[in-house]
């Protein structure tokens, strides 16, 4: 069963129990109050009613609005259940106008409201009561009615309302209940110690909108964040302002501009990297220059019985035929080796020798492959093939020297390709181009975390546990 909805803003109503045990419903968004007819201590007939367009939260009937009980306060009443809806602030106005401390009481409306003083009669009018008596009455009325200024009733924390103004949407930042504890200076309105208000701040950096609600009125203010230097020069002060501490609610994020700029440049750069790679790949030769198969045979070149093996013997070492690496510039060479090792290893010492200059490039590769079944599950480790790239190989005639070491005999095939592009280069370049993204994003988010840390909606939650392990 869904909770009843506010007749004013359709937010879910919340029930609060007053000191005398009566439950009333109030709206945490617009702070209006709904009274069932059984809750009212006085009768509230409405004068000159007309349809208000609002719906009763109990039975959905259309509410009628009119001035309540001969006062100037406009209230809404349900014609079927008799409940009354009062907008924010109207409860206090009605109590003041009727001269009563409380609108609610056990037993419902059993007595007529005290008569308003007639014109010309003596006797104190509620509004003309002495200041101490009036303050006492106001304090009592505040205790009786749902009090917004309690930490448990900050509904803005839950609903996170927004305000739309001049095509901007302002996010709720903080709700507070300031109370005047000290007054010094001149003010265009009457201020006294003990004055309370409810303030709500909404931000759309660098703009800020504040709402201040008191018993008498509701005020909206619009502001814009200024840099300290602007404030300093605006007041014509000499020197420099003090260094700012922390993050102001409406302070613009200084890293947002970087984020936008890096985003644009990064997108262009990654697209350029892709275009470069495609261009160079299309013009690469990718020419196979040599392919051969060889065997690593444990029995090859075994010395005769009784003859110790020569320490320099390498009976399985091979020299390939010469092959051409033709071109106008140095390029990469890809050497791919495929073997048939089976639960063993094959270690190959390569030397790519330039037949014209007798210069060799040495490198070593190990290829191993193991597999089996353990507890009914198969496993494998390693690979039977290997690929290596040599960079900056100058054009010329070359041959390969291959000297294998092995555990058991194996055969292997070697394929050499000239000027072979690698997509790895594109991935590496893209990663390097995207590193600044992460850096700028981290700084931007850190600023926002700092901004919202003191708000009603912090972006991170800090644990208060003292028994963290």
């Amino acid at each position, binding site marked *: 069963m869904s909770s009843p909805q506010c007749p004013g803003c359709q937010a879910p109503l919340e029930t609060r129990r007053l000191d005398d045990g009566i439950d009333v419903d109030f709206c945490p968004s617009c702070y209006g109050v709904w009274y069932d007819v059984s809750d009212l201590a006085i009768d509230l007939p409405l004068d000159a009613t007309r349809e208000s367009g609002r719906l009763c939260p109990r039975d959905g009937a259309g509410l009628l609005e009119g001035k309540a009980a001969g006062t100037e306060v406009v209230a809404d009443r349900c014609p079927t259940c008799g409940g009354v809806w009062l907008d924010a602030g109207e409860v206090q106005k009605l109590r003041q106008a009727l001269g009563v401390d409380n609108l609610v009481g056990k037993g419902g409306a059993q007595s007529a409201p005290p008569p308003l003083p007639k014109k010309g009669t003596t006797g104190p009018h509620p509004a003309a009561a002495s200041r101490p008596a009036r303050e006492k009455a106001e304090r009592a009325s505040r205790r009786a009615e749902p009090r917004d200024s309690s930490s448990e009733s900050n509904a803005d924390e839950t609903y996170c309302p927004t305000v739309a103004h001049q095509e901007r949407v302002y996010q709720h930042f903080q709700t507070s209940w300031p109370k005047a504890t000290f007054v010094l200076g001149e003010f265009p309105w009457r201020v006294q110690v003990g004055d309370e208000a409810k303030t709500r701040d909404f931000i759309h950096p660098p703009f800020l909108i504040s709402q201040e609600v008191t018993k008498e009125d509701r005020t909206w203010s619009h502001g814009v964040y200024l840099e300290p230097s602007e404030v300093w020069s605006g007041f014509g002060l000499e020197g420099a302002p003090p260094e700012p501490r922390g993050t102001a609610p409406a302070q613009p994020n200084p890293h947002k501009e*970087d984020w936008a700029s890096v985003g644009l440049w990064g997108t262009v750069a990654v697209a*350029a990297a892709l275009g470069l790679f495609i261009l*160079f790949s299309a013009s690469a030769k990718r020419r196979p220059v040599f392919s051969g198969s060889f065997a690593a045979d444990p029995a090859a070149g075994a010395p005769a019985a009784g003859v110790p093996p020569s320490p320099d013997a390498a009976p399985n070492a091979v020299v390939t035929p010469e092959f051409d690496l033709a071109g106008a510039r*140095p390029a990469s060479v890809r050497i791919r080796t495929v073997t048939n090792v089976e639960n063993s290893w094959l270690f190959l010492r390569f030397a790519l020798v330039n037949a014209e200059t007798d210069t*060799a490039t040495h490198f070593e590769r190990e290829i191993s492959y193991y597999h089996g079944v353990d507890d009914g599950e198969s496993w494998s*480790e390693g690979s039977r093939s290997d690929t290596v790239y*040599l960079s900056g190989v100058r054009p010329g005639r070359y041959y390969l020297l291959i*000297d294998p070491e092995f555990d058991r005999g194996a055969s292997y095939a070697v394929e050499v390709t000239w000027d072979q592009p690698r997509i790895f280069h594109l991935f590496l370049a893209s990663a390097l181009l995207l590193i600044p993204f992460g*850096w700028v994003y981290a700084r931007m988010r850190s600023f926002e975390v700092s901004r919202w840390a003191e708000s009603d909606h912090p972006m991170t939650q800090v644990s208060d546990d003292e028994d963290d392990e």
Partner: protein
Amino acid sequence: MKRWYPFWAAAVLGWLAWACLFGFSFTDADEVKSVPKSVRNNPGSYRSHYRYYYHTHTGK
């Protein structure tokens, strides 16, 4: 950051162009000069003294 990123991007793209043209690899390779021509007839007789001979065994 926005002032420096174009230079960073240009440097990375320059590196990419160089790598695509001439190749780039992390392979550990040594260049040795004056390989004896007799190695073609007796390849096992030649082993570079500049390399550290090692290999590892893997598997269970």
